[in-house]
């Protein structure tokens, strides 16, 4: 009886795997790092990294939920950071943040439009736009007269601090934006008709269409939300650093996709445990931080990231097969 209810729990909550991993990991890291990892300063820094990666991954998970994939998020993140930092000194934080969001929405709209209109594989298209917008980002930073660095005296304003440039309760404001974003997306995805339709499209686009759902519209919308979130994540990271270059956000797309898969998203769509995605981002950020505080070279993180994703994919499969077996 006990066994059956556990299976049911696993079946209905795909984020359980990553939450267990996170608990084990925190225990392990805390006991093996002699307070280098589990101290207030380091945990606050993990919260900030989790925030930007988490927002990026949340957007990517919505696109993944429709059965498509968006790997251009790393470049959109960079464009968001540049749009914000390039304008914040002249037009102020709120308009600069909105400008970044609009840029992200435009990239998402472009991705979604090409994918749905021309039936191009989203993997191929967003790989191309990943490169294109990385190129745009680098070109922007090479234009004479444009500055992507915010003078120190302008970093103390309330709104500048609100968008990643400061702390609330000792934790970077980005983290609170992540919590807010997670709650809003959970409400949207699990409790509104739009969310129900998004999950349906990922589960079976044909069935969704037969119920009168405009599949194209649902997919484009997911790409747009993803673009906006990626650009806002870039804004928060830019606000935190106060400067950016054309390489900002490079390889973040891989971590974002990894966080989605770790969190229990199905690559083919229809399964989006949002809390799992955020916990996935936390696990990746924590591992990265653990390696750093122990003096391990950063390239080992990339190697480890690859191994983690494959292991997560295999064990997730095994766990779900086990959960579905008893009927």
């Amino acid at each position, binding site marked *: 009886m006990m066994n059956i209810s556990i299976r049911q729990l696993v*079946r*209905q909550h795909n984020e359980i795997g990553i939450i267990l991993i996170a608990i084990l990991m925190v225990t392990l890291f805390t006991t093996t790092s002699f307070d280098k990892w589990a101290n207030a300063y380091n945990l606050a820094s993990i919260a900030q990294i989790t925030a930007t990666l988490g927002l990026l991954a949340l957007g990517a998970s919505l696109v993944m939920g429709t059965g498509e994939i968006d790997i251009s998020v790393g470049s959109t993140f960079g464009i968001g950071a540049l749009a914000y930092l390039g304008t914040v000194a002249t037009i102020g934080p709120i308009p600069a943040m909105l400008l970044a969001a609009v840029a992200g929405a435009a990239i998402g709209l472009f991705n979604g439009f090409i994918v749905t209109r021309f039936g191009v594989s989203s993997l191929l298209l967003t790989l191309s736009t990943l490169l294109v917008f990385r190129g745009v980002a680098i070109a922007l930073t090479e234009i004479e007269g444009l500055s992507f660095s915010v003078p120190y005296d302008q970093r103390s304003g309330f709104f500048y601090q609100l968008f990643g440039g400061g702390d609330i309760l000792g934790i970077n404001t980005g983290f609170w934006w992540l919590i807010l974003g997670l709650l809003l997306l959970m409400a949207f995805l699990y409790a509104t008709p739009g969310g129900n339709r998004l*999950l*349906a499209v990922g589960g*079976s686009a044909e069935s969704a269409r*037969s*119920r009168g759902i405009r599949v194209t519209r649902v997919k484009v919308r997911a790409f747009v939300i993803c673009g906006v979130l990626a650009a806002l994540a870039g804004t928060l990271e830019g606000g935190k650093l106060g400067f950016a270059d054309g390489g900002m956000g490079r390889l973040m797309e891989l971590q974002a996709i990894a966080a989605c898969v770790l969190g229990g998203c199905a690559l083919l769509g*229809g399964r989006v445990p949002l809390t799992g995605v955020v916990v996935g981002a936390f696990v990746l950020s924590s591992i990265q931080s653990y390696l750093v505080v122990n003096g391990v070279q950063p390239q080992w993180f990339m190697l480890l990231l690859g191994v983690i994703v494959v292991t997560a994919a295999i064990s997730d499969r095994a766990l779900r097969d086990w959960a*579905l077996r008893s*009927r």
Partner: protein
Amino acid sequence: MSATSNNSHPLIEVRNLDLHFGAFHALKNVSVSFDSGQLIGLVGDNGAGKTTLIKVLSGIHKPNSGEVYFDGERVKEFHPKQAIRFGIETLQQSVGLCDNLSIARNFYLGREPIKHWFGIPFLDFKKMREASTKVIRTFGLRDNVSADDQVEMLSGGERQSIKIGRAVEFKNRVVIMDEPTNHLSVREREHVNELAQQLRDQGLLVIYITHDIHQVHKLADRIVIMENGEKVTDVAKHEMTSDELEEVIRFGGRDVEKEEVTV
């Protein structure tokens, strides 16, 4: 004719429908009409055009030429959404339910009941659960199945029951069943056929597509046979026996006529 024509038009009328898929001529000048309260057996071999015809009626395909009238009104837009608005529900074997969603969520997919909170439309879970639970109980699903269970847990017959229950719940006027009993056990098949007859008795138009003329002859009021994209036979049930109809399917409409001439 002229005085009563407003009330006597058929529920669905198709005139001179033509549809090509590239070089393939899927529907050739098909004209047919269907009335409410009838159970129509639409029969034919693979590639006969029966599924293509119902895909036009359910808004999935747009015809190249010809007209479709619903309740006397000319259909201009061919999209599933439009068909649903007319009250045409199509049950296809492998389409219509999303495995990853719960029964309640599937039940209302595309027309979710909403409740406004702060002006934002949220799903009305209470209503979704209540209506789908009622259907689960009425349509003979296992006792331990709940509205919150995912559809991937259900058997083939239970899936069909959900789809039929959904068709009833939304007060549809037309239910098109495409091979509804494929891959079902004998008991489930009988159950689905009973449900089809119940829908007809409630005054709905039921179009029942199958290969199996003997099975549908027991249920239907009228039999329409298609072959190579054309309508070859359109008779009331009592006009021909199921064996005679089988001959038509086997040898093609024209060949039988020829035989009749020679006999």
